């Protein structure tokens, strides 16, 4: 479980997040949604420690991240897996080497065990035949899968996913979403997904957090999302033509 308490973040004089309070449950896909530039990625970066918050704290299973010393943070980070929007795969390493990278840095395993674990992760995301290729030689969808395989290599307790569907076709997006959902259940991770893709939200979200105007504007489940009469939330979720059709169908019912 991850808790965010009274978190605010400013860059210079510009406040991006104001007094955010949220609890992200274990074993659930927690999706943070919001318009581009609303601060959802900044919130995720504050949670993982890439940005220090101006105020407030982040608790991992009750332990304050920002009160931890360097070694404690290092240990905690070995329990975090993250899939980046850009995938952030290492270009000079093959797919297999990318997945093995965190194992080589931290795991106390033999080379053979590392290979087996990496191969298992690649099989889990259904790209076992691509191990010898370099990231530039595979498609965007496959790169996402490699990113997920690398994120789960160390059997993480916490999984962060930043815009998993950006640049992907609708079918591949669904495959990636389902993979995130399955992995969350399999590893019982606290999963936080940053997205503005409503298809993804309607497909896999267990708990939804809507960031608007620097604040946590709304929080709820999928059924609650569609029934909400929050004006800003309605504007956001029904902005796309597909969701407008859903809205019409709901009204006619």
């Amino acid at each position: 479980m991850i808790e965010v308490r009274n978190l605010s973040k400013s860059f210079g004089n510009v406040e991006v997040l104001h007094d955010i309070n949220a609890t992200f449950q274990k074993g659930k896909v927690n999706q943070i949604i919001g318009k581009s530039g609303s601060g959802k990625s900044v919130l995720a970066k504050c949670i993982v420690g890439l940005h220090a918050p101006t105020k407030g704290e982040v608790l991992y299973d009750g332990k304050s991240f920002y009160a931890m010393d360097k070694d404690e943070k290092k240990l905690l980070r070995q329990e975090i897996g993250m899939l980046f929007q850009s995938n952030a795969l290492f270009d000079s390493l093959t797919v297999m080497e990318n997945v093995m990278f965190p194992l080589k840095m931290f795991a106390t395993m033999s080379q053979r065990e590392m290979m087996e674990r990496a191969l298992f992760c690649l099989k889990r995301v259904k790209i076992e035949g691509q191990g010898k290729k370099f990231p530039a030689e595979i498609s965007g969808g496959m790169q996402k899968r490699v990113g997920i395989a690398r994120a789960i290599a160390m059997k993480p307790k916490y999984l962060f996913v930043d815009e998993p569907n950006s640049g992907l076709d609708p079918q591949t997006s669904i495959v990636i979403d389902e993979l995130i959902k399955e992995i969350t259940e399999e590893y019982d991770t606290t999963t936080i997904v940053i997205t503005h893709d409503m298809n993804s939200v309607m497909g896999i979200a267990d708990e939804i957090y809507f960031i608007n105007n620097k604040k946590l504007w709304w929080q709820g489940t999928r059924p609650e999302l569609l029934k909400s009469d929050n004006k800003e939330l309605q504007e956001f979720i029904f902005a796309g033509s597909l969701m407008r059709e859903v809205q019409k169908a709901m009204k006619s019912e």
Partner: protein
Amino acid sequence: MSLLFHIGRYFMLLGEVFSKPERLSIYWKRTVEEMDLLGVKSLGIVSLLSLFMGAVITIQTKTNIDSPLIPQYVVGFTVRQSTILEFSPTIISLILAGKVGSTIAAEIGSMRVREQIDALDIMGVNSAGYLILPKIIATALINPFLIIISMFLSIFGGWLAGTASGIISSSNYIQGVQYDFDPYIVTYALIKTVVFAVIIATVSAYQGYYTTGGTREVGISSTKAVVYSDVVILITNYLLTQMLLL
């Protein structure tokens, strides 16, 4: 941002770089790779420059000392002194700052803008140490060899140009090269080389590590890496010369 801010952040980055590595074997493997990329692959340009620079020093020295009172071997002596004292350690280091420094800044800068450094940090890897330390060790180990090769080739280039054009005899040139040789000047040159190698690696890595933005900013970081490395090398050259030769 102020100069003091950058100096402070530079030394804080160095603190991170020299903190305890996660896996020594991985760092060593990366160091060997960097020695090849940053050192061995620079051998061609260093050799070419050294040969021609030695040749030019010989011709210019000869054409500028017409007096019969000055012995012929002065040409060889001048080539040796200028090569070992200044040309090989300083000018070649400035050239390497262009080649190696821009490579380092571009590589690390690209990793920064493509979130690869964030990925390392989130995994718990000391990104500064993992990326920068092997480059510092590699350049500090390999650059002295490059500079020694440069010294030999420059002196050889001078001999080749002098004897081929007939402006000096081989024996006179060799006599000059051997005349009044103080081995300390080689020590002085190698101390400078190691210091300059560390400057090139750290200043360039600093520029790359703190790149923000996109590909344009990576280009800007590369340019800054070369310019600032050159400036710091020139200032340090003056300070070291005063400390070690006076």
